[in-house]
């Protein structure tokens, strides 16, 4: 046993209802040894003469924030140029201003040429720039080596002429619905949909090594996490092959790695049995900072990509219903084996029809079973309805909602995807809490930036990027939002006995803030500066990350 340290703080919001807010926390061997007023801690055996550390005396301490749905790709994606319309901070802490014109896109790509003169970019959003990016624009970056740009949606990529030639699409051998042509019959440069984008996969791979997630993204990702107060994050989902797993095991074993990583095994196994067998095997290979054993299954697509499955069958703009990514039989087989073997399942559902299928399947399988501690989580579940939330509560199903969508795509959801009525009940945090469902909220980084205080701000204010409040009835309080990014998220990872609150015996994981979220105007929640984190007792200063 090593010596304990007592940290003094301006305030500690423990998220433990029996403790509430206090001023001191004692840490020993990476665990919380005690929490309360200094005099109360001094009365605890072993803490009488513990060193008092006052470096956080003017800070506010919360449990380390928990990101329940993000991807390590959020680290590696920065190898290519950020071309989004919003400013965004990279893992080195550098703020990249949003690019708002095609000229700015070209300019930034020109400064991102690799050693062979190739360029790639990500996050371009034509909805926000209100201009189209085409082959000729990217030929201005380079007309001899490939340049490619991915749209923020991930469903479209834009190629310059050399990249199209390398993919065998210039001139095209045939017409294709995903390959729009100009008036002269030449491709404008957009490749729409996974099939056609696959034609350029070799080019894209040579430009962006993050295409295959192999664990190398963990380091830059963890630096970003320190900056936003995150001490535990999922990587949802990961193929977890032996090479990738070896990388993750070695990276997380480093004494200065600041993050507890919770990868979920992606369901791309040959059979449900093979998937669950592998999950059980992985469970036994966990460490404190690498928690394995959960699986992820994807049922439908995305709402902004018009591939989510909707119960009413059609999108607001008339687009047809989306796609199933797994047949119901596969879902049922995975669920059944997972229930039999105590394996936790994270199910991606965006549309309410996908949510309906997940709930209905589980209802059937839980008949006759008494235990509801399966820990199943609906991930995104953005259109889940009040009646579905009641059923989720009855089934022990938890939800991890995506309020960042209200800010980033809320205006598009109102006018294009689901319409003004349904956007008001999208990501219904209020209804979830009212139904008694465990609630977490997430960023899906790199889809939107990881920053739990920003995600909490979205859930509290529901303000779109154009400044409109979308669905005021579904707003939750600051206290409820803070619970969602700590204890709520911990429950969705089945780690709530170890993290999520500042409770004696739990891991000493803290988010160190410069302001008190309970004292400020809720509209300023996203602007609270984060000093850094404490992860299993180790201190990480964001300024040094």
């Amino acid at each position, binding site marked *: 046993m090593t010596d304990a340290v007592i940290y003094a703080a301006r305030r500690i919001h423990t998220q433990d209802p029996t403790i509430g807010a206090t001023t001191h926390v004692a840490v020993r061997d990476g665990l919380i040894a005690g929490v309360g007023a200094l005099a109360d801690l001094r009365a605890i055996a072993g803490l009488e003469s513990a060193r008092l550390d006052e470096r956080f005396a003017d800070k506010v301490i919360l449990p380390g924030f928990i990101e329940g749905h993000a991807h390590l790709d959020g680290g590696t994606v920065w190898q290519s140029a950020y071309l989004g319309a919003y400013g965004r901070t990279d893992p080195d802490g550098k703020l990249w201003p949003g690019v708002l014109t095609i000229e700015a896109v070209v300019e930034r790509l020109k400064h991102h040429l690799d050693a062979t003169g190739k360029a790639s970019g990500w996050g371009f959003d034509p909805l926000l720039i209100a201009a189209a990016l085409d082959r000729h624009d990217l030929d201005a970056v380079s007309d001899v080596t490939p340049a490619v740009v991915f749209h923020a949606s991930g469903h479209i990529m834009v190629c310059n002429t050399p990249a199209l030639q390398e993919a065998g699409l210039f001139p095209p051998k045939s017409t294709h619905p995903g390959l729009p042509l100009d008036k002269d019959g030449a491709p404008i440069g957009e490749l729409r949909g996974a*099939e056609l984008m696959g034609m350029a996969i070799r080019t894209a791979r040579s430009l962006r090594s993050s295409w295959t997630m192999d664990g190398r993204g963990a380091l830059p990702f963890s630096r970003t996490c320190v900056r936003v107060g995150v001490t535990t994050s999922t990587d949802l989902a990961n193929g977890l092959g032996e090479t990738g797993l070896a990388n993750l095991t070695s990276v997380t074993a480093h004494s200065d790695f600041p993050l507890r990583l919770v990868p979920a095994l992606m369901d791309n196994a040959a059979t449900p049995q093979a998937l669950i067998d592998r999950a059980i095997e992985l469970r036994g290979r966990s460490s404190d900072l690498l928690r394995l054993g959960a699986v992820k299954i994807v049922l439908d697509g995305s709402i902004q990509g018009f591939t989510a499955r909707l119960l009413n069958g059609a999108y607001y703009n008339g687009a047809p219903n989306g796609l199933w990514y797994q047949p119901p039989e596969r879902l049922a087989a995975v669920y059944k084996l997972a229930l039999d073997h105590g394996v936790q399942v994270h199910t991606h559902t965006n549309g309410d029809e996908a949510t309906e299928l997940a709930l209905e399947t589980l209802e059937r399988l839980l008949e006759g079973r008494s235990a509801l501690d399966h820990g199943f989580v609906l991930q995104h579940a953005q259109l889940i309805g009040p009646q579905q939330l009641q059923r989720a509560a009855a089934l022990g199903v938890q939800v991890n909602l995506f309020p960042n969508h209200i800010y980033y795509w809320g205006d598009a959801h109102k006018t294009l995807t689901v319409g003004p009525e349904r956007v008001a009940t999208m990501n219904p945090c209020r209804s979830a809490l009212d139904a008694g469902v465990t609630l977490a909220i997430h960023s899906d980084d790199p889809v939107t930036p990881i920053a739990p205080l920003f995600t909490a701000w979205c859930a509290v204010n529901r303000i779109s990027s154009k400044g409109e409040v979308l669905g005021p009835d579904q707003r939750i309080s600051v206290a409820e939002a803070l619970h969602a990014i700590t204890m709520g998220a911990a429950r969705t990872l089945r780690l709530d006995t170890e993290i999520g609150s500042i409770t004696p015996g739990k891991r000493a994981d803290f988010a160190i803030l410069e302001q008190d979220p309970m004292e400020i105007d809720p509209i300023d929640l996203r602007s609270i500066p984060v000093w850094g984190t404490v992860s299993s007792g180790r201190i990480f200063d964001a300024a040094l990350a």
Partner: protein
Amino acid sequence: MIPITLISGYLGAGKTTLINQLLASDLGLRLAVLVNDFGDINIDAARIRTQSDDVIELAGGCVCCRLSGGFAQALSDLRDRSPAISHILVETSGVASPSALADLIPMIDGVRLSLTAVLADALNVEHRLLDRYVGEVVRAQLQAADLVILTKTDAIPPDAAEACLKTLARDFPGSTILAASFGDLASHLLFQPEKAAKRRLRCEPPATDAHDLFESFTLSFAGAVDIERLAAALARPELGLQRAKGLALDHHLGLVNLDVVDTNWLITPQVHDPEPTLGVVVIARRNSGAADYITSLRDLD
């Protein structure tokens, strides 16, 4: 141009079983099979020459590949193999529409779409078509089919199988519909049927009455025939033939299997049959005039 056959169909329709059959039978073709996963692919270990994560090479030149780096990439890798692949079979995902892949094939050099075959499980296809979650997926698959193969017909009473066949023929008038129990599926899938047949069939108005859509009769011959002439006659586009299959004695080739699917035909030598039953079963659309014409073919001997 290497021909490609897409093998689609909902989960459990029999795609993998079919692919296992094709891999197990010695067709004398350098066949490439593209699958999502090797999981249920069943290959006799003695036949495996080399094996990696994504490619299994078999003795005799067949290969089995896993779709890992994207469909287009997999096809161009197969196209560039040496010695050349003679036919590519693609097993599509159970919830995918084959048309997304069919659209992509013309974009790729050196390959062409030969046929989209969609398997339907006779036990439950009609039930699936009404399923609240996947009904429209199954419908879209069947609508994209050149050839619908009704599988597991031996698991239900013959009249139920016949009824199912007729329902599909009524609801999907653009496709040729066969029951798998009619025989060896390999010939339908591999002997490079032409797309013209599909277009012709699709021009026809949907049948208003499912009953009596087809008629079937047997051509029998006393002696040897000119099998190529017979095959060509049966495959005439204006005949609108659905299917013909049987055993005949050719003047030069001896005992042969004849297999006709609309305008395509295949002749394969038949060996080791001491007591062959000669005769060709023909299925044609009723009142198409095919019966009269075909009956006149008896003169071919």
